[in-house]
C-alpha cells in the first residue's frame, strides 16, 4: 500500500482477547484488530461492506469473522466475503513486532492532508 504514511503502535497482542477483537479510532474511521485462536492478528476497517456493521463485534472463528448484524462471514486474511455473499471488507496493513501490534495508517487517518 503506497499511501501508508505511518506505522503506529497500538499495544501488546495480549491486549486483544483470543477469538476476539479490539478497535482503534483514527481521525477518519475505526479499525478492527482481530486475534484468532492460533494467535494470528489481523486488521480490517470496522465496517461491513453490506450495511456498515461493526465487524469487531462479531464472532471470530478460524481466520474469519462473522458480522454481528446479518451474519456475513469475512476472511480476516483478505477481507473477502465468504460463501454466496459478495463484498470485501477493507484490509488494514498490520505487523507484529516483539509482541506489539503496529498498524499502517494513511495521511488522512492520522489527521494529515495530502501534500498534493
Amino acid at each position, binding site marked *: 500500500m503506497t499511501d501508508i504514511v505511518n506505522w503506529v503502535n*497500538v499495544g501488546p497482542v495480549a491486549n486483544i*482477547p483470543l477469538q476476539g477483537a479490539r478497535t482503534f479510532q483514527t481521525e477518519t474511521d475505526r479499525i478492527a484488530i482481530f486475534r484468532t485462536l492460533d494467535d494470528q492478528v489481523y486488521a480490517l476497517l470496522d465496517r461491513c461492506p453490506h450495511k456498515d456493521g461493526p465487524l469487531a463485534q462479531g464472532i471470530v*472463528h*478460524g481466520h474469519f469473522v462473522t458480522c454481528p448484524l446479518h451474519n456475513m*462471514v469475512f476472511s480476516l486474511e483478505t477481507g473477502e466475503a465468504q460463501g454466496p455473499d459478495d463484498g470485501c471488507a477493507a484490509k488494514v496493513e498490520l505487523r507484529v513486532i516483539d509482541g506489539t501490534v503496529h498498524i499502517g495508517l494513511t495521511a488522512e487517518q492520522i489527521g494529515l492532508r495530502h501534500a498534493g
Partner: protein
Amino acid sequence: MNHVPAALTKKPRLVVIGNGMAGMRTVEEILGRAPDKYEITVFGAEPRVNYNRIMLSPLLSGEKEFDDIVINTAEWYQENRIHLFSGDPVIEIDRTRKVVISKSGTETAYDQLLLATGSDPIMIPVPGHKLSGVVTFRDVDDVDTMLKTAANGGPAVVIGGGLLGLEAAVGLQARGMSVTVLHLAGHVMERQLDPSAGYLLAQELGRRGINVITEADTAEIVGTDCVTGVRLKDGRMIPADLVVMAVGIRPNGRLAADAGLTVERGIVVDDVMTTSDPDIFAVGECVQHRGQCYGLVAPLFEMAKSCADHLAEIATDGYAGSVTSTKLKVTGVDVFSAGDFSGGGETEEIVFRDAGRGVYKRIVLEDGRIKGAVLYGDTSDGGWYFQLMKDAQDVTELRDTLAFGQAFAGGSAGNPLDAVAALPDDAEICGCNGICKGTIVSAITEKGLTTLDEVKGHTKASASCGSCSGLVENLLAATLGGDYQAAAVKPICTCTDHDHDNVRRLIKAKELKSMPAVMQELEWKSSDGCHVCRPALNYYLLAAWPGEYVDHGASRFINERVHANIQKDGTYSVVPRMWGGLTNPRELRAIADVADKFDIPTVKVTGGQRIDLLGVKKEDLPAVWADLNAAGMVSGHAYGKSLRTVKSCVGQEWCRFGTQMSMSMAVDLEKMTWGSWMPHKFKMAVSGCPRNCAEATIKDFGVVATDGGWDLHVGGNGGIHVRATELLCKVTTDQEVKEYCGAFIQLYREEARYLERTAPWIERVGLKHVQERVVDDAKNRAALFERFMESQKTAQVDPWAERASQGVDAHEFKSLSLIAAE
C-alpha cells in the same frame, strides 16, 4: 561330517556380558542351533536370574510377581551347562589377552565375546536429582524402591510422559499413590502418538486419577535428605514422596569404549552383530546398527537371531534393521503405533474416529503403501497394519475399508454395507448396551423394523450414547436392501456431522466439559468452530454443567457478550429489569437521568412492559449500567437467549374482575427465573382472570387465573408465525405454579435445540411428551424443578454490575489507544 565328542575337545569359550533379554535370547538361539558348540559363561550385574524387563510395569502395578516374569530359572542355566555370575559385573575387557575381568577380580578367558550391556536410564541433572526417593524405572531394584514408598501412599511425581513414564505412573497409582506426570512436550508419548491419540490417552489417565501436566519443565527436585516435591520453571510446586525419572535411555557402551571398540551413540556393529573386533559381538539396546539404536524388544530378538546364525556358523542374510511398533502395557488402555505417522509431504492419511468407543485410528499412506499408523482404543488390527507396512504391500484396493481393519477387508472395497455384512453375528455393534450384530439383524427381520428409532426401541442398540447409530443404519440398509430409507440427519453446521440432539446427548454421556473437549471428542471438522456452532455448544455446555462450565464469551453473539442489544448503527439499547412490569418513581427518575446524562436519543416502552433506552454508545454502557444499578435496577436480559420478561395485568390487586394476585405472581416468577440461559428467548405472562389482558396465551409459559386457581399454558409466541399456547394443566396453589414453571423451563432447557423456541419444540415433540414429564410424573417434575433451581444458584448474577463496578470484560468497552508513533 566328523563328529568329535565334546569331552575330547576343548570347545570354544563364549562369554556373554549381560544377563538381560538380548543376551539370553541370543544364547537361547545359539543353543537351538548348535547346543554343544560353545562353553558359555554369563556375567550379570543384577544379583538374580534373567527376567523379562518389559514386564516391570505389571510387576509394579501388582498384576505380576517376580516369579512370573523370570525367563530362565537357575535350573535352566545348570541344564544347559552355562556358568552364571550374577551380581558380579564385568569391569574390564582385555582384548590382547582375550579375558574379561569382573568386579570381584575373576578373570575369564574368551574366544568369542558377546556384549549385551543394554542401556542406562537417563537422569536429568537438575538440582536435587541425587536425593533419596528419586529413582529411575529400569530394574527390579527400582521397582522395590517404588513399592516401599508406595506402601505409605502419598504423592508421587513421574518425570517423563513417554511409554515407560506412563506405565510407571499407572503402576504407582494402582499401588495407592496420587500421581502427577510431568511432561515437557505438548502431549504425552509424543514420539509414538500424534496429538489426537495423545489427547485421548491423557483423558483416560485423567479419568484414572492421574494428573498429567504437559509443557512442564522441571527446575528442581526439592528436599533436604528425602525428596519432598518438584518445582517447575514456571514456579509451580508439586509435592512428592517419590520421583521417578523416566525421560529415556542411553545405550551402555562404556565397557566397549574402554576396550577401544568403535562406539558412537551405541556400540557399532555390522549385519551379523560383529563389533570393530571380529571376535567381539554385541546385541540389544547397547548397539548401533546402520545408525539406529533401539529401545524396544522386537529388534533385540531379530538381532539375536542373526547373531546366533553367525556364531553357529549358519549362512545368514544378517540383520537388516527393524521397523518398530509400540504398544503401551497398561491394562485397559490400548495404544499402538508404528512407523512414521508424522504425515505431510506426499503422504495421505485415513482417519477413523469412533468417539463413543474412544477409538481413534490414523493410517498414513505414501504411494499406496502404509507408512505409519497410530491406533488408540482398538488396537486389534495393529499387527495387521504393521505386517502390511513391513511387507510394503500395495493397499490401494483396501483403502476404503482399511480403517475398519482386517475383518472388513473381505468385503468389496469401498462399500460400508459390505463391511457390516462381512461382520460376524457376534460382532458387538453397541458397546454401551452390549448388543451384537446378530441380535439387531434378527430384530429387524422378525419384527419388521425399518427405522433407527425402532431398532433403538426394540434392541436398545444405539439408545445410549448413540455413537453406533451409523453402524446400525448400515445394518438396516444391508438387511432391508432397497426398502431402507435413512432418516436425514441435519448437522448443526458444516463444522460437524452431528445434529443438535446428538451433541447434547454426547456432552452428557461423555462428560465433555469444555469447547475443545467437545470439538475433539465429537470430531469437529474445523479448528475452532464457527458463528453457528460455537454459541450452541456454549449453551449446551452451560446447561449441562451449571456452576462448572465457564461461560465462553468469545462464543457468544455480541448482544450476550456485552449484555445489550446491538442496533443497526452499532450503538446499543439498554433495557433495565422491571419485575413483572412494575416500576416506581425512583426507578423512573434514574432512567430519565441516565437518558439526559448520556444523550440517549430514544426512550421507548417495549412490548414486554419495559423501558428501552436506544442509541447508547458502546463505551458508555458500563457507566449507564452503574447509574441504573445505583437505583436498584439490574439487567433486563432483553438481549439474551434467556428469560426475557414476565408481563402482568393488574389482577386482583386492583382490577374489579381479578380472581388472583397476578402482579405478585408475575414478580415471584420473574425473581425465580431471571438470569437463566435458554435455547432461545423465553417470555412469560400472568393474567389475573380469564379475560387475559396480559396476553398470556401467546407466551412460552402463560399463567391465567381462574376462580379456583391457575391455568398453565405453554408453547405460544407472537412473531411471523403466531402460535397460541396449549393448555399444559390446571393447578390450584401458587407454589404449584412456580414448580410447574421451573420444571417446564428446565425440560425446555435440557431438550430443545439451540435457537428453537418452545413453540416449534412442542410441535416437534408433542404436548403429550411434555405433559408426561412435567404433569403426570410428580417425581420427575420435582427433579426437573430441583435441577432448575440448582442451575439458578450460579446464574442469577447481574452481568451489568459485574461490568459496571467489577471490571469484567473491560476490554469490550474500551478502544485501543496509541502507544507511540514511530
